[in-house]
């Protein structure tokens, strides 16, 4: 699941200070699940903006709405009618959602209200940790189920490095060295020898990635 964190209020008001019609749009997907950008957070931010505007003596209309998912065109369509009333939209969705809005509403200034930081898992309630960077070439099948790309500070393909100390990463003592974990797990699985093979460098070249699911694409009925 995508994890994001709220942008600072200062940054948000700096970006919207010259506008009079503002919308805060929550997303019902990942950011709702993480209590960062769902309806409640949209309501809270809208409330804060109204309070801010009132204190500034500014006449600003702030509305809020929450889309089922901002990354789907059909759900984005649902705000079509209301969008005419807005000059600026603050999206609380991940970077994907913000861009979908921006593409759909070229006349409106679309701003991110959150910083998307990673794809991660709930380790315990309220603690999320990065697990995947979407590199396009998954190798965790060969690394004991742990991803060195996402979880090693250097994204080493052949670790660990000399900074692995007592099972911890030198970058942060809170972070386990993923290569230590990989070795332990592979030994446990009886596959330790596989790690003797040197892994070639990853192909970091092609961006942006594109994926096509031919069988799900629209059929042109004229053909």
């Amino acid at each position, binding site marked *: 699941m995508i994890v994001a964190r709220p942008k*600072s*209020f*200062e940054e948000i008001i700096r970006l919207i200070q010259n506008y009079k019609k503002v919308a805060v749009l929550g997303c*019902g*997907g990942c950011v*709702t*699940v*993480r*209590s960062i950008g*769902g*309806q*409640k*957070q949209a*309501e*809270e931010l809208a*409330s*804060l903006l*109204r*309070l*801010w505007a*009132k*204190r500034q*003596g500014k006449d600003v209309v702030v509305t809020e709405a929450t889309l089922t998912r901002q990354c789907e065109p059909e759900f984005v369509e649902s705000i079509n009618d209301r969008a005419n009333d807005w000059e600026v939209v603050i999206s609380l969705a991940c970077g994907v959602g913000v861009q979908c809005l921006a593409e759909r509403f070229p006349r409106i200034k679309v701003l991110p209200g959150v910083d998307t930081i990673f794809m991660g898992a*709930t380790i315990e*309630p309220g603690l999320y940790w990065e697990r995947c960077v979407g590199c396009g070439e998954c190798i965790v099948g060969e690394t004991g189920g742990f991803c060195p790309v996402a979880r090693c500070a250097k994204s080493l393909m052949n670790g660990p490095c000399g900074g692995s100390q007592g099972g911890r990463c030198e970058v942060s003592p809170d972070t386990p060295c993923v290569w230590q974990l990989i070795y332990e797990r592979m030994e446990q699985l009886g596959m330790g020898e596989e790690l003797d093979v040197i892994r070639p460098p990853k192909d970091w070249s092609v961006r942006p990635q594109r994926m096509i699911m031919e069988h799900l694409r629209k059929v042109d009925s004229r053909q």
Partner: protein
Amino acid sequence: MNIKIKGEAPCIVACPINQDARDYVQLLARRNFEQAFQIVRSKNPFPASCGRICTRRCEEACRRTSVDEPVAICWLKRFLADKDFTPNLPKPPKEYPETVAIVGAGPAGLSAANSLILLGYKCVIFEELQEPGGMLRVGVPRYRLPRESLDKDINNILSLGAQLRTGIKVGRDITLSDLQREGFKAVFLAVGSHKPLKLDIPGEELPGVISGIEFLRQITLGGGVKVDNRVAVIGGGDTALDAARAALRMGARDVSLIYRRSMEEMPCETVGRKEAEEEGIKFVLLTTPAKIFGKNRVTGLRCIKMTLGEPDNSGRRRPIPLPGSGFTLQVDTVIVAIGQSPEVDLLSKNGVEISEKGTIKIDNHTMSTTIPWVFAGGDAVTLGGTLVQAIAHGNQTALSIHNYLRGERFQIPVRTEPIKELSPPRVQLIKREARQRMPMLPVESRIKDFNEVELGFPEEQAVKEARRCLNCAAGAVVDPELCAACLTCVRVCPYDIPQIPLGGRTAEIGPDCQSCGVCVVECPANAISLKDRYEDMGEKTLESVMGQIPGRGILQYAPTIVAFLCQYDSHSQTVSQKLRENGIKVVEVSCISKLEPRTLLKAFEMLADAVVIIGSQSGDCHFDAGHTWAKRRFDYTALFLETLGLERQRLQWLSPTPEEEFFKSLSNFVEEIKKLGPVFQIV
């Protein structure tokens, strides 16, 4: 759309009239007394009487019993009834031309009249005695049910428009055919069960022997009944107990209650039995009378000791005489209270079929007798029934008469199953809160007269008792369409209630939910709400109190302060008053764990200059985890205010105790806010 809880609160299911006990108790807990009373009265035309002498099947079923003791539902009903609200009953949707005759102005007859009038029929009630009330008037002594309380219930029913004709005995003064000729389209026989059963032992005809029901009736109606020093009461039911306690109040020095089984099998009410014990009634158990002695007057009672054998048809163990155990009690008065039967001879002559037990034969669903336009209910059908059973019969018969007169089929009501017992691990998570004790007259003074023994709960005690209710089968519900399957509710619930069904995605919040509101606030998708229509999480109250803000003074600035106050705190009323005296807007919530950060922000949007949260003092918190969650949201909201550049002091957290310290902190807080000036400079 919402996931419905399967099953209903056991208190509601156990009640013969399905009184919504949970709902009125929850409203009472929120001090919404009038609405609570109206809920009671909507199904129960005898709230003041029932609130005193009901047999409380609801309390037997109360799930709080597995935590500590049942909620005192009955006494809470009495508290509401004693508030003297005017019943607010819906006008009949339609007026029908038919008039129904009701025979007997006891609880069954009057309840039927109440329901029939509300359904749109006219009623005439025929009563043999000079006053209505039936067994409630002549069979229940005033120390348990004062006449004023009974009269209040009856007057409220009669004022709906039922016509009462007293001094008429149907069967003797007027026959069923006469009633038909007079134009009545249906008749409800609710004649009660007033004919005392006899012991059939030698000496029963002696002066000084009286039936319990006759004894109680004469005390009420003034038949000149007297008791001597030593009284023996035979029987183990409520009438026996009442006769014994009444005899004490009539001046008897020594009252023994003789019962052939043990204490355990006694059919009388436990509360009454304990009160009788306190008053000095002697319980002579496992004993049966064999002969009453005396020449012109009772002088003694020969008894035999019993032992208990195998269970009989009633499921109680059968008493067996012990050979050679005879003994004699020196007594001056013997009161026989071993049961009553209905007087059905005259009705039988009128063509009403009678069962082998001597009761009127009816169809259990439609309450109709073997004559299609004649219905019957109450004690005449059940023998020794209870008040609430009689009310149930009255309500049910009214509906059945309506169906009969309109040519509709009687719908057998669908029975809702009660929810299951609390599971033992959950019992451990629920806080123990002792049941409130009923204030009572001291024993020495109460046995001298017929003044009411139980004094009723004062308001604070009633509210405190009501807050013990676990709100079974209500609580939070998830809207699966909004649910993001984030599992937050599963993770935050202090009672481990929400469960993801195997293979499902939306949590099911089961009937054990305690309504603390933690999941409602934490649900990021806004998918959870509390089912109760009277629960507003502080939002609606906030709107209503903020609507009352007067225009801001131009000359002198007075800050607008909103206080969110926990209702569970035992001195929330003192605190609330003090806050109001200081011009503070008060929003009472049943636990501050229900406060959403957006609600706190909303207060500022609605022009509050400051917000203060006042939780309950430790020990009073009904949901122990409530404070922790409320504090987290408080800190979360405080950060918002910081980002707005608002002074941190504008959001305060105060403890209501110790009182003096609270008052001091409060006035400091108000002064500080005054100095800070308004949040918004509004011209």
